[in-house]
C-alpha cells in the first residue's frame, strides 16, 4: 500500500510543479516537507531558499525560471515531439484525449491553463488519478481493477509520457536556472523510468 501511495503522491507533486508557476501554498510544502526536500537535494541546500522572502523567491527566481522552461524556450507538450511538423495539436485530434475520454476524464482548461491536454503536467496528473483509483480498488479488494489499472498505467506511460517527456526533462535540466527546477527535472526523469521498470515487472505484457 505504501508503494501506491508514494507513487500517487510523487505523480501529484511532479505534476503540480511542472504544470503551473508556484503559489505560496505549494511553495510552503516544498519548503517544509522533509520528504520533498530529500527528493530535491540542491533545492534543499540552496541558500537563497531560506534567506529570501517567499514573494521575492517566487517573483524573481522561481516563476521566471518556470516561464522560461515551459513557455519561452521549451515546449512541454507531447505532440510537439511526436508530430513531424512539431505543431501542438490543440484540438480533438490529440491522441491523448482518447485515453482520457475512455475513463470519463475531461480536462478543465480553465483550471489547467494549458493549450492542449498533452501537457506534461496534465499527463502526470492523469497518472496520479490512475494511482488514486488503484488505491481505491485496493481498499475495496477489487483485484481485477487493480490489475487493470496497473496495465493502464503501464500503457499510458509507454504510449505517451515515455515517448517524449525524457527529451523535455533532459533539456529542462540543462536550461534550468534554479535548483528547484533542476532537481524536479532530474527527479521526474528518474521517477518515470523507474516507475516503468516496476510496472513492466508486474504487468505481464504491454497490453
Amino acid at each position: 500500500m505504501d508503494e501506491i501511495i508514494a507513487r500517487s503522491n510523487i505523480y501529484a507533486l511532479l505534476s503540480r510543479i511542472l504544470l503551473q508557476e508556484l503559489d505560496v501554498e505549494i511553495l510552503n510544502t516544498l519548503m517544509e516537507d522533509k520528504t520533498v526536500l530529500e527528493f530535491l537535494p540542491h533545492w534543499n541546500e540552496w541558500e537563497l531558499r531560506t534567506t529570501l522572502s517567499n514573494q521575492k523567491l517566487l517573483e524573481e527566481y522561481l516563476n521566471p525560471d518556470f516561464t522560461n522552461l515551459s513557455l519561452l524556450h521549451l515546449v512541454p507538450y507531447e505532440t510537439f515531439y511526436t508530430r513531424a511538423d512539431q505543431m501542438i495539436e490543440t484540438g480533438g485530434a490529440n491522441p491523448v484525449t482518447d485515453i482520457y475520454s475512455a475513463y470519463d476524464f475531461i480536462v478543465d482548461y480553465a483550471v489547467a491553463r494549458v493549450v492542449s491536454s498533452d501537457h506534461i503536467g496534465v499527463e502526470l496528473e492523469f497518472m496520479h488519478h490512475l494511482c488514486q483509483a488503484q488505491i481505491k480498488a485496493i481498499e475495496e479488494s477489487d483485484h481485477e481493477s487493480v490489475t487493470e489499472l496497473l496495465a493502464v498505467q503501464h500503457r499510458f506511460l509507454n504510449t505517451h509520457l515515455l515517448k517524449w517527456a525524457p527529451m523535455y526533462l533532459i533539456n529542462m535540466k540543462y536550461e534550468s536556472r534554479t535548483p528547484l527546477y533542476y532537481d524536479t527535472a532530474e527527479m521526474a526523469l528518474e521517477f518515470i523510468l523507474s516507475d516503468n521498470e516496476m510496472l513492466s515487472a508486474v504487468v505481464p505484457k504491454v497490453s
Partner: protein
Amino acid sequence: MYLESRRTFLKGAAMTVAGAAIAKGVFSTDAAAESVENSKFTNTPDSLSFYPPLDQWEGFQELDGNDWKRGGINRHGVQSEENPDGIMVNDYMLVPTACSNCEASCGLTAWIDKKTFTVKKYMGNPLHPASRGRNCAKGYAVQSQMYDPDRIPFPLKRAPGSKRGEGKWIRTTWDEAMTTIGKKMGDTLRNGDELSRKSVMYHVGRPNENGFVPQVWETMGLDSYNSHTNICSSNGRTPSIWTANDDRSSPDWANAKLIFLNSSHAADAGHYFQQSASFIADARKKGAKMVVMDPRMSNSAGMSDLWIAAWPGTEAAIYLYLANRILSENMTDKKFVKKWFNWETLMNDHKHLDFMLEKGQITKAPTGNSFDDYMALLKDMYAPYTLEYAVKETHVPAYKLEKLYEMFIWAGDAISTYIWRAAAAGNRGAWMGGRAAYFCIGLRGAIGTEGGTFFHHWHVISVSGKGGSSTLGQGAGGADVPKVKVWNELTWPPEWPLSTYEMSYLLPHLLTDTAWQKKWNDRGLKVPSKLSVYIPRMYNPVWINPDGFRWIEVLKDETKMELTMNLSPVWSETNWYMDYVLPVGLAGERHDQHSEATFPARWTSFRQPVLRVALEKSGWKAKNPNRATLEAHVKAGLGEVWEENEFFFDLCVNYIDPDGSLGIKKMWESKRHPGKPVTIPEWYDAAFGDNLPKLKETATNDERYSKEEFPVYAYLRDHGAWMEEDKIYNAMERELKFEDGEVISHGHKFDAGSMSVGTAGVIKAKDHHGKDTTIGIEIDGKKMEGFETLTRKLEFFTQWATDWKWREYAMPFYPRNDKEKVEMVHLVSHVNHMYMKEENSFALNTVFRLPYNIHTRSANSKHLMEISQNHDPIWIYTKDAQRLGFKRGDAMRVKIVDTVSGLDSGYFVAMAVPTEAVMPGTLACSHHGGRWKLTNHVTVPNGVTDGKVDPSTAPRDLNNKEFLKESPANIGKAGAQTKIDDYSGTTGINSFGVPVAEIQMDGKIGKLKYVEGIKGFKAERFAEYNRDSENIWWDGLSGSWQNAVAAPHPDPISGMHCWHHKVILEPAQPGDKIGDIFVNYDNNFKVYQAWRDQLSRGLDSNSTIRRPRHIKRPWVSLDSTAYDVTIKS
C-alpha cells in the same frame, strides 16, 4: 539503477501532504464528460465524411460550428439539460437543391435548423454525380443571398405618376401585378395579328433550367424568348453547329491525357468551373498534361504544363499548324477520318472544289474522289500553315508550338477540350478557332473517345418543359402544343440568318433604328417598333450588355416598352428602370430541372425551394397548393418571395387567359384538378417520369416512394440529383433501333417503312408529319445514328454554308497572308495586331470571368464581395507600361476605338497593374466589373393597405405542431399583405457591394462618376445572420462600367457580340477617378450600323427561308411556315 532509486521514491508515501491535495486537479468527470459519453459525438471520428447517409437527412444532429470554437466537447461536453454550458447540438433536416449562381448546377444541401426554421448552412450534395459533394465559393454564398438584408421583400411597382428611373416605388401584391401584366399580355395576344405575337418579350440571363420557360412561351404561340447567349458564348457554339450540328462540346476531362484549354474557363473560372476543375485534377493525378491557351496568365495557365499566349483571335492558325503537321507527318487516324469526316460530300462537290482552286485554297484539283484523294487534298490545303507562319501570326514562340505538337501527338485519342467563351467571345471570326480545333482533334480520332472530346446533346437531360401529361391541354411531352407560327425580327434580324442565338444585345438599337424597321417593312416583313410587355428574368441587361446607356434610353421610353417587369430577387441597375420588380427565389428557393454536359453521362439536378420542402416533409400543407412556395417563404420570414414555375402556371391559367378563349389556359390547367393550375409535384412527376425511364423504374420500385402519390417527383425531392446514363462514348455509332414499325434515332421516332439509304450512306425516313428527315448513316453495313448533321458525319466541309453566302469558310480556314486578311476580314479579329498602328494602342482582353462573381447576383453577397475586392484593374505587360510611363496604381484613360468604322466610343478610367502575366501588346480587364446604383436606400412603406397581417403566431420551429398547422391565407391577394420581419419601410440597395454613382445622359453622350463608396451599417433584416454588417472595409468599387462604353460588335456569322476592343491608352486627366466613364453612344449606334452593313450577309430577294431548317433555332419549336420568307427587291 532505477529500481535502486525506487527504494528512495517509496519515501513518497511519507509526504506530509497527500498527493490529492497537491495536484492541481485539472480533470473533471462531471456532467460534461458524461454528456460526451452519452452522445454519438467524438473527437476522433472513423471517417471525415462531411455528409451523413441519406437515411439520416430528415433528422441529423451535428455539433454547432460556432459554438465549437469555444473549445469543443473535450472542454465543455455536449449541451444537455444537465450540461447547459456544453457545445450546442443542431437538429437539422437536409434538403437537396442545386446551385444557381453559375450554369454548372452543382448539388447543394440546405441544412435547415428545425428549431429556428432557418438554413444554417449550404453544403454540397454527395449524391450529385458531377459535383460529388463539392462546391466553389459561389455555392456556399447561397446562404448569404438567402439572408441578404437588402433582398426585395415583396412585389414592387413604380409609383403612380412617377417616371421610370425616378426611384419611386410602392408595395403591391402579386395579384395586382399579375392582373395588370396578364391583362396586358392577354389583350396583346387577343389582337391575333403577327405583330402582336412578337410584341411580348421574355429576356433571360442565365436560364439554369432545361426547357420550362420556353414551353410557357410556346404554349402562348409567341416567338418571344430572348436569351443573353450572344453576349456570352455563341461564337463558341457556332463551330459545334457547323461541324456536328450540336450546341457545344462536351469534354471527358477526368480520363484525358491532354487537357487543352482555350481559355481560363473550366480550370479556374467560368463554365462548369468547380466540376470541371475537379475532373481535371483527377486526370492530372493520373498523369495528364494541361495546356492553356490564353493571352493572360490565368490561374489555370499558371499551373499548366504549357502556357500558350497567342494574339487574341489568331488561335485558328495554331490549330491549323497542328493539322498541317498531323497530315504531313502521317499522324492522322485515317480509320476515324474515313468513317466520320464527310469527305465524300466534298469530293463530289465539283463546284466547291473549283472554287477552292480558284481562291488558292488548294494548289491543284484532286485527280479522283477517293478517300486517298481527300487526304491528298487536305495535305495540300493545310501545307501553308507552317511553323514560321504560325509564329508570325500568333506571336507564340516556335519552341512552344513545337512542344504543343509533341504533347498533342503524345495524348493519342484522349484529348479533351471545351470550346466556349474566351477567344470566341472576344474576337470577330473566332468561331473558326473552335472549328479548326475540332478539325485537328478529329484528325487524331479523339472525338467521342474515352478521354476525348464529344458533343453536348448526348450528355444532357432536357425535360423541364415536358410535363405536359399532367395538364389538360399539352399532351405527353407537349405533343399537343401548336408550334409557333411567327418569326421575331427583333431577336432574329434578317442580317444574321445563321446567328447562333438571339441578337439580344441589339434590342434597344433595333427598337430605336426606325430606318432599319422601315427598310424591312418595305421589303415585306412585319418588324415590331415597340414591345407591349418586356420581361427580363433575373437579368440585368442595362449593366451587362454593350452600350448600356442605349438600354437605359429605351427602357425609359414608354412608347417603345409599354409595360416592363423583372422577375428578380435582388436590386440591379435594370430594375431601377422597371415598372414592376417581382421577387422570385434564388438557388434554394425555386424549382428547376437543370442538367449540363459536364462529363460523359446524362445527369440532372433538381433545384428546390428548400424551406417549402422542409415544411411539407414535416407535415405542413399550403392553403393554396398553387402558391405553396410563396406561402412557405412567407412562413420562413423571407418575405413575399415566390418562384417562377408556380408564377407562370398561375399567370397563364388565371390572368392571361382566364376564360380559356386564347387556348392558353388549358395548357397549364391540372388534369387532376381541372380549373386549377397544375401543381409542382404533378408537373415534375410527369416531366421526369414520362421522359426518364430508368428513373421512373427506380423510383416506382423503391419502397420508400412506390406508395407516394408522385413517386418520381418524391425521389428527386429527396435525392436532388439523378444519373440516367453513364459512360457515354462514341454514341454516334449507336445502331438504329426498330420497334413496332418505327425506327428510333437520337430519341426520336420515324416510320421504318419509309426508310431509305442514299448517297454516302445517309439514311432518311419520314417523321410523324410525313416530312423526310435524315436519321442515320450506314457504314460497312451497319446502320448507325451518326451525328446530327445532314450528312450524319462531322462536317468539316459544311456544304449548306455555301447556300448562305459563306462559301469561302465552308472548310476550316484562316487567312494565310495580309491580302487574305483583308479579303476574309470576317475571320480576322477586330483586335488583330494589324490594327494596332499607334504606339499606345492595345488589344484589350475583356472576357475572362472572375471566379468569385456571378454577374448580377453576386453584388450583395457579403461573403463574395469581401473576397473579390481588387477594382478589376488593367493588366499591362511590364515593358509596355514602362514604355508609356505607367506605374502600378496609376489611373489610365482606356479609350475604345472601333476598327470597322474608325469611330471612338469614349473611355473608361482604370488602374494600371504592370505584370509579366499578360502578352505584350495586349491588356486584360474583365468586363464583369463596374456595378453601380444611384442611391443607397429606397423607402417603400411596409404595407399599403389595411390588410397588414402577421404570417404566423407560433414560433418558427419544425417540431412545433401549431407552427405546422398555420399558413398565411389569401397569399398574394389584396388585404393579405404580410408583415415583413424587421423591415422598417426602407431598404438598402446592394449595401455590401455596390457604390453610388451619378450618371448624366443626353441621348448622345453618357457619363458616370462614382460619388460614394459603401460603408458598414447595422442590418435590420436577418440581423442575426448579418451581425457583422458593420465590418465593411472595402469601398465597393468593382472596376469601371466598361460595358457601357463598348459599342455592339455583331459577328457577321454567329451574331456574337465580340467583346474585345482596340484601345488607346492615355494618362488620366485632372479630375479623373478610377471608375469614371465617358461614352459617345451616338457613335456606338453608328458602330453597330457599320458592323451590320459592312460585314453581314443577310437575306435578300433570293431568300426563301429565314434560316437553315436543320440547325437549331433555340427554345421554342417553330412551325415550318415561320421559316418561309419573301423579301421584296
